């Protein structure tokens, strides 16, 4: 490693007084204050500010429109355009989940069901949102494209039980997702 000797900058006498620098700083903060009060803060428009500074004031304004596509929000189960629940309860997500937020009880698909050859579907599927760390590993590991991290982020509840998303709730959040690989369809 080369040693770089940094020389202290030589200051003029008036710079040694520090007063001009302090004055400059005061003027800069004052400029910011005036711009902020006039609703013209630097970068306020790009950040969709509320008009005071660059801050967006949360419950009234929301960031939803600006959320990036890859945003990792609440994980949810999806159904495809054939109304089939895609989860086959292989439990890979349950095993990969670092905080062990997912609990799956596998169930069987009855033989009279048109999708009987899939054989398995979850009987119970719980995601404990108190434990979930939104890492997205469940989505990554899923071989069936059944679990996705949605863009919702405002999960609230007044008890621990309320924060556990059960299967119905997960499908409700996930909804129908189109354009997935339908590997259980008949070959044509």
């Amino acid at each position, binding site marked *: 490693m080369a040693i770089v000797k940094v020389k202290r900058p030589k200051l003029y006498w008036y710079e040694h007084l520090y007063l001009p620098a302090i004055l400059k700083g*005061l003027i800069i903060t004052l400029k910011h204050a005036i711009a902020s009060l006039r609703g013209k803060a630097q970068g*306020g428009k790009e950040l969709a500010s509320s008009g005071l500074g660059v801050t967006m004031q949360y419950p009234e304004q929301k960031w939803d429109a600006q959320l990036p596509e890859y945003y990792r929000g609440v994980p949810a189960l999806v159904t495809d355009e054939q109304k089939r629940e895609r989860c086959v309860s292989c439990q890979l997500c349950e095993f990969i989940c670092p905080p062990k937020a997912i609990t799956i009880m596998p169930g069987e698909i009855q033989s009279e069901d048109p999708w009987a050859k899939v054989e398995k579907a979850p009987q119970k599927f719980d995601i404990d949102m108190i434990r979930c760390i939104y890492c997205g590993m469940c989505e990554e590991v899923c071989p069936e494209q059944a679990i996705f991290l949605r863009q919702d982020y405002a999960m609230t509840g007044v008890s621990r039980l309320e924060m556990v998303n059960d299967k119905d709730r997960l499908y409700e959040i996930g909804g129908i997702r189109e354009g997935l690989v339908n590997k259980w369809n008949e070959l044509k």
Partner: protein
Amino acid sequence: MDFFFIIASAVKIFGFTFLVILPLVAYSTYAERRVSAVLQDRVGPNRVGIPATLFGFKKDLKLFGLIQPLADGVKGLLKEDFTPAHVRKSFYWMAPAFTAAPAFVSLCVIPFGSAVTIFGYEIKMVIADIGVGPLFIFAIASLSVYGITLAGWASNSKYPFLGGVRSCAQMISYEIALGLSVIPVLLFFGKLNLSDIVTYQAANGWLLLPLWNENGTLIHEAYWQTSSQQWLLLLPMGISFFVFTTSIFAETNRMPFDLPECETELVGGYHTEYSSMKFALFFMGEYAAMIVGSALIVTIFLGGWSLGFGLDSALLQTSEGDWKWYAGLIHMGAFLAKTVAFIIFFIWVRWTVPRFRYDQLMKLGWVVFFELALFNIFLAALIIAAPHIGLLNTFLFGIPALVITALLMFFITKANEVRRKAKVT
């Protein structure tokens, strides 16, 4: 008369401390947060208002978050008042009071309005009209360091202890500059009674703005010819003002000098181990000290309660020179406005200037401000004495003496510099 005096004093104490200063303390914490937010392009606390929805109304009243200090107070009272097991309990409990009390006590010599006549009695709008005003404030205000030092020591853990030691050292080094910087002012006024100082300024122009004379005219010909001394005095008074203001910053542990509680180095400084209302008391003490500091600066340098620019005599005085009945109220308003403006200046500086390093702080106190204030005394003395000792003596003795003092101060500063360099190599 005596009975009336007691009643009037009680009313003044209650009115000034409980109805003006305590709310001002609360609202300066709010102002701190709002102004800092605006300076940094943020919003600040703007939510707490009247929760009208609780009483069946459709919308809450937000009031720009003006109820925030009340909420803070309620929170402070309701929080668990935790006393760690390892502290020295008696001092730990006394320290917050020691910090808060001196600031409130020193308020009593600040004149907050001109005299008001009620039922034929003239009431001076100052709680204690004593002849040692600034000295009293210095004496009492410097007691508040006991609170901080005791808090640091009694907490019995390292960061608070360091905070307490720092506060002690800082207070000592800035107290000297503070005391010395006010001497030119006292040389000029020749008295220590703050009410008299303000009355003089109301008639003859503020110390930093000597723009009008006793006739109330703003700039008038004869005035320019006779009072050149006043303009010359602006130089030492300006230095005084600068050193005094900076020392007040250090004295109140405000931002460029808030080393006793700097968060980045000492967690929370001396109040690390404190919680709930004890912690809030430290804060109240700090803000009260800030208010006293700004009130003192306003009183000494910026004309206290006077409106200035000759407006006092033009608008508020009768032809006999008495104050009109509403003059007292307007003067109180003017005093309050000036103090609030200065508090906002304090906040503005806090959120602009970064914190000093500890050795820089010490050097500034002992090497720069101490010398500057000392030199300033000689300068002011010479300017005040010049008309009395004559031109010849001024040039023969006065100016050489001044130059010698200046050189002396300069070499003391240099000597310090050389020793520092020697250590580095």
